[in-house]
């Protein structure tokens, strides 16, 4: 009954008034971030990290706060999908397909509550799955040596790159940009590299600067380009009540979608968008032509929300056990862990059980808090949609500047951040995914060290990289993950690139 005693430890941390308060605050902020169109979970978490860091929170508290924001944003994304027909974040894209028609048919309240409940179901399923699967996987990860880690990092780039863009060459370029940036500054043996003699660059480029620039600042440029055009709420939202009948009718849809989403989330690089997409598509094919999908079907509202929230939890599994994020937002959370000097990986579960189990217990609590916020209190968040972009986006910019400025107090980092914003704008325009860039900056150093250490062990024999069954399996998975989407694209035609 390992899990029980661990959970008891977790709850003893999570139920302390201070941690509980952070979880509630995180859920509230997260739902707002998710609900606002143009401020997705990765943006939201990214701009909050520097602030969290300067607040001097301890590791567990910071992690609880930010994962609550993450879960909250996943819940909140559906609100603007349903009411505005604009996804609040990318995983919520599929929810527009049936959520908006349902709202237009006069059932906006029912759609919000049903999808809120589906989010709860998916997220709770995934949190429990995380609780059981993560310790098991961390035991497997103990077998990993340097060669396996190198292959694992490669796998993350290949699957993420394969899924994130419609063009593998562009994903590869994105990954190389990130890896190339990660090489700047001192290497692990203390040699300065590629700094061009610039003193500011000797310590390397802070990944938080890159993340906030690529996500938040680039978003501002997109809003300037579009002049913040957005539609107003075109549907009427009257009294919110709980549609028990619909919840009962979609119980198996929620279950199947949670399973599909959770598995999609665990795959490195796949993320929540894929989870909601697969959940929606499989339910659509189960329902057949008479299912009314696309016209406001209740199953079409429940499936993607259960799927994307389950995937959000699933994506935490590889992030915590292997240090390899499963999505853009978990990449940002990985950045948070690194800032806090926590090394994710199998040893995290034995060395810092209070962090892992405190986090899991907080996520369980956060789910119930979020259910309360997203069902009886959903009208509060609907008001948030009224914040006009001409206030919101300048606000996001200012928070980004203050966050980065308070990290180092250096104007150089701010200039870099603006530079990354421009880069992010150009990359997104050219349909080059930005998430592999982030992943490259985060994992570049580790990936190189894995390679160098493996070569020290083997005395420079490159065949050592393929010397164990696990390593070979990972190499094959990496190649399949990179190549397969080229052929599957015809069947899995994505509405747009995955950036969650």
């Amino acid at each position, binding site marked *: 009954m390992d899990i029980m005693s661990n959970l008891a430890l977790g709850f003893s941390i999570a139920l302390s008034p201070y941690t509980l308060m952070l979880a509630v605050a995180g859920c509230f902020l997260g739902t707002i971030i998710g609900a606002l169109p143009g401020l997705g979970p990765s943006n939201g978490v990214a701009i909050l990290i520097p602030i969290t860091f300067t607040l001097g929170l301890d590791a567990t508290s910071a992690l609880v706060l930010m994962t609550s924001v993450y879960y909250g944003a996943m819940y909140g994304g559906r609100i603007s999908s349903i009411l505005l027909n604009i996804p609040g974040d990318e995983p919520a894209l599929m929810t527009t397909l049936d959520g908006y028609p349902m709202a237009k048919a006069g059932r906006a309240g029912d759609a919000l509550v049903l999808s809120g409940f589906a989010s709860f179901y998916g997220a709770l399923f995934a949190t429990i799955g995380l609780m059981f699967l993560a310790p098991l996987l961390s035991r497997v990860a103990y077998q990993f040596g340097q060669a396996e880690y190198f292959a694992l990092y490669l796998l993350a780039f290949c699957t993420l790159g394969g899924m994130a863009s419609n063009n593998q060459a*562009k994903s590869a370029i994105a990954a190389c940009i990130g890896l190339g940036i990660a090489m700047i500054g001192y290497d692990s043996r203390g040699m300065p*590299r590629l700094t061009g003699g610039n003193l500011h660059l000797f310590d390397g480029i802070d990944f938080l600067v890159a993340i906030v620039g690529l996500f938040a600042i680039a978003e501002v440029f997109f809003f300037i380009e579009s002049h913040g055009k957005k539609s107003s709420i075109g549907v009427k939202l009257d009294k919110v009540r709980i549609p028990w009948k619909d919840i009962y009718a979609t119980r198996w849809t929620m279950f199947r979608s949670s399973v599909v989403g959770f598995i999609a989330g665990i795959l490195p690089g796949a993320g929540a968008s894929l989870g909601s997409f697969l959940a929606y598509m499989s339910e659509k094919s189960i329902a057949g032509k008479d299912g009314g999908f696309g016209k406001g079907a209740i199953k079409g509202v429940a499936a993607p929300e259960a799927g994307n929230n389950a995937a959000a939890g699933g994506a935490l599994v590889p992030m915590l056990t292997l240090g390899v994020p499963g999505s853009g937002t978990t990449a940002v959370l990985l950045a948070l862990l690194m800032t806090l000097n926590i090394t994710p990986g199998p040893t995290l579960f034995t060395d810092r059980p209070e962090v892992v189990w405190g986090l899991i217990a907080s996520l369980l609590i956060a789910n119930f808090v979020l259910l309360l916020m997203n069902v009886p209190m959903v009208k509060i968040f609907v008001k948030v949609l009224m914040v006009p972009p001409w206030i919101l986006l300048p606000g996001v910019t200012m928070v980004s500047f203050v966050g980065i400025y308070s990290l180092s107090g250096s104007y150089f980092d701010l200039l870099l951040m*603006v530079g990354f914003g421009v880069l992010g704008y150009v990359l997104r325009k050219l349909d080059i995914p930005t998430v592999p860039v982030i992943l490259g900056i985060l994992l570049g150093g580790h990936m190189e060290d894995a390679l160098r250490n493996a070569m020290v062990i083997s005395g420079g024999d490159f065949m050592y990289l393929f010397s164990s069954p696990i390593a070979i399996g990972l190499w094959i998975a990496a190649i399949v993950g990179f190549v397969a989407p080229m052929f599957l694209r015809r069947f899995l035609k994505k509405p747009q690139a995955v950036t969650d």
Partner: protein
Amino acid sequence: MASDRIFGLVVAVVALAYIAGATQIQTSFLSDPVGPKTFPIMIGTVAALAATFMVLKPDPEPNWPVLRTFGALFFAVVVLVLYAFSLKPMGFIIPTAITAAVLSYQIKPQFAKAALSGVGLSIGLFILFKFALDLGLIGFPKSWTS
């Protein structure tokens, strides 16, 4: 078409320069079989190959904004760069109000609303950061207060 080709070329040139830069890295006395050069050179090579592919097989042209919008974006970048330089000597409140107002005006060109959101955001965020979150921000230039 053209955008992908140009970007591919730029990446290819940068990748080659990167490789050239990597060959100049000094090897430390704690030498290992791979050394500090190999991995950067590998990255540069992959980038150059992928960039070549992008030049040869470009995707359809993206929707670039009209020239005027480009001007607006360029202006926004200039304002943000100036903001980065002014934050330390000028304090938080004045540069923030101006920058926020300019960005707001660029999203919705209405002078009164932009000015309002600039001043509101500047003061609101200053109170939030300084007093609620206890970050070490300076409100006004030091010469004013001393």
